[in-house]
């Protein structure tokens, strides 16, 4: 049942080009908003917010404690995942330093060991001194610090993006 070849007339060429062109336009009309929506996280401006984490005199000098606060970019349905933690160190001179809990190796949460005065990571064995510098293991750099300030007798931390090292 061989059909004779269809002659490629100018009219057919035009119709084919038109159909392919319109198909492309249709695909772009759908595709651009969809891909744009998926890439939206890249276009958001970086959210940073000061979050109060406790009264100044609730932190003992020389101690490092975990403080919890709400993410800078939290949404109502985030539930408990909208929370973040940091390690807040009150230096002997009364100044404050806040460290991200994320190990700079691959982001696992480091634990503070008060007696040993070390931060230790449960994943791949990274260790940091109390000032956040690397003591041992694979971390390539010191713990990331969040800016800290004291306002109206409250210690405030500048919450921002999860540190990607």
């Amino acid at each position, binding site marked *: 049942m061989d059909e004779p070849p269809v002659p490629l007339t100018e009219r057919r060429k035009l119709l084919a080009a038109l159909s392919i062109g319109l198909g492309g336009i249709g695909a772009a009309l759908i595709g651009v908003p969809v891909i744009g929506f998926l*890439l939206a*996280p890249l276009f958001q401006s970086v959210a940073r917010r000061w979050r109060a984490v406790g009264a100044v005199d609730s932190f003992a000098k020389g101690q490092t404690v975990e403080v919890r606060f709400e993410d800078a970019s939290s949404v109502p349905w985030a539930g408990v*995942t909208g*929370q973040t933690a940091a390690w807040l160190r009150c230096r002997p001179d009364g100044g404050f330093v806040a460290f991200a809990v994320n190990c700079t190796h691959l982001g696992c949460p480091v634990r503070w060991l008060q007696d040993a005065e070390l931060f230790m990571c449960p994943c791949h064995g990274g260790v940091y001194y109390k000032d956040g510098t690397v*003591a*041992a293991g694979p971390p390539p750099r010191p713990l990331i610090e969040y800016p800290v300030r004291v306002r109206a007798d409250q210690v405030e931390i500048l919450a921002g*993006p999860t540190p990607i*090292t």
Partner: protein
Amino acid sequence: MRLLRTIWEWFDARTDASKVIGPILKHPAPPRTGWMYVFGSATLFAFLIQVFTGIALATAYVSSAGQAYQSLHWITSHAFLGHLLRGMHYFGASAMVLLVGLHMIRTFLTGSYKFPRELNWVVGVMLLGFTILMGFTGQLLRWDQNGVWSTIVAAEQAGRVPIVGRWLARLILGGQTVGGATLSRFFAFHVFFIPALIFGMLGLHLALVLRHGISEPPDARRPVDPKTYRAWYERMLHREGVPFWPDAAWRDVVFGTLVVASVVFLAWRFGPPELTSPPDPTIIHADPRPDWYLLWYFAVLAQLPHGTETYVIVGAPLIAGICLLILPLVFNRGQRAPSRRPWAVASIIIIVTAVGVLWRQGDKSPWSPAFGAQPLSAAVVHADTPQVAQGAQLFHAKGCEYCHSISGHGGHRGPDLTLVAERLNPRQITLRILNGGYNMPAFASSLKPQELNALVAFLNTRKIAGSAE
């Protein structure tokens, strides 16, 4: 029965279903393919388990960052058959990863990726990639503490990619932090996007099998020559080919049924993986671990020499992927028989051994601090002075025990100190403690002199009982 036949004939006359499906099912296959050829179809069976159990689970799972954990708890402990279904989805995933691996090893060893089946292999490599992605995104959908921290670890790894790393990390998190957008995104990828790609690629994979035929078992006397292979294959099929259904398919069905039965049995016997703590990023006492099929990579990440990580995290998957993709393009002719391809056999042995060793390491993870270590018992310490007793107590309090073990108690990151005094004198021990060393912190600033003396006194008692002072 007659009614059914009439309905079928009516349907067939209008759709030509038997004319379309019949030749596909009965396409000629090479004889004597045997039991080594069942892993591909078994992977397909495992995938079907995933599709059906996944659809069922999706009817009850809530893909909200704030509620997913509770909904999974409900599915596991309250929903009718929920415990079994979650178990089947977990063991189905495990089976799929395992079978995809076996299928690849078989295809590689029998040289089935050579001409004209190069593209079958390439599409198969993509399917392998999608399978791993499904495994990883699926683990995250458990959305317990492990899921949340695995997301962060994934984002940190993506962050190591030069130039676009931060963008990739943000796309993985669905924003700047783990939160409301993260889980919905992973859910959509796990249930819509990646499965759609798998269905498409699977269709292509099977269409290519039909197009080029099932590869015949290799024969060392007959290397592949692209010029003559096709004509020879056609003649061989014509001469001694057998209909795929049922001559070859019965083995696929037997093995596939065994796979399905095993998955159901394991799900019933062992159940799904336990959910860890809630996905609260402020619960610092987390111990993130990947599921078993990525545990070996976890071991790789822990043991890389300092400074090489970025190259390995970014480069290794890239190089491995490229090697797998170009393999059939570079070696598309010649011997297929494993007996004549010693390097192929050796590389499989090396890869399987390496992954196996890393697996064991990942399972034990000796590099992780033993946070659960208890203070040494009096029987182990065997103190004859108060100073030694205090030293033993400091050995735990100062974190030494998290990395060093004594008489079987403690971590394995650093050397075992059960008999440390046989190797080092008090002066050397003191120097180690104060200055630290490779992978050991320096304790000079956190130990008082009296504490240091007690610790050294204790460690100096760690020697073979009765040996001279």
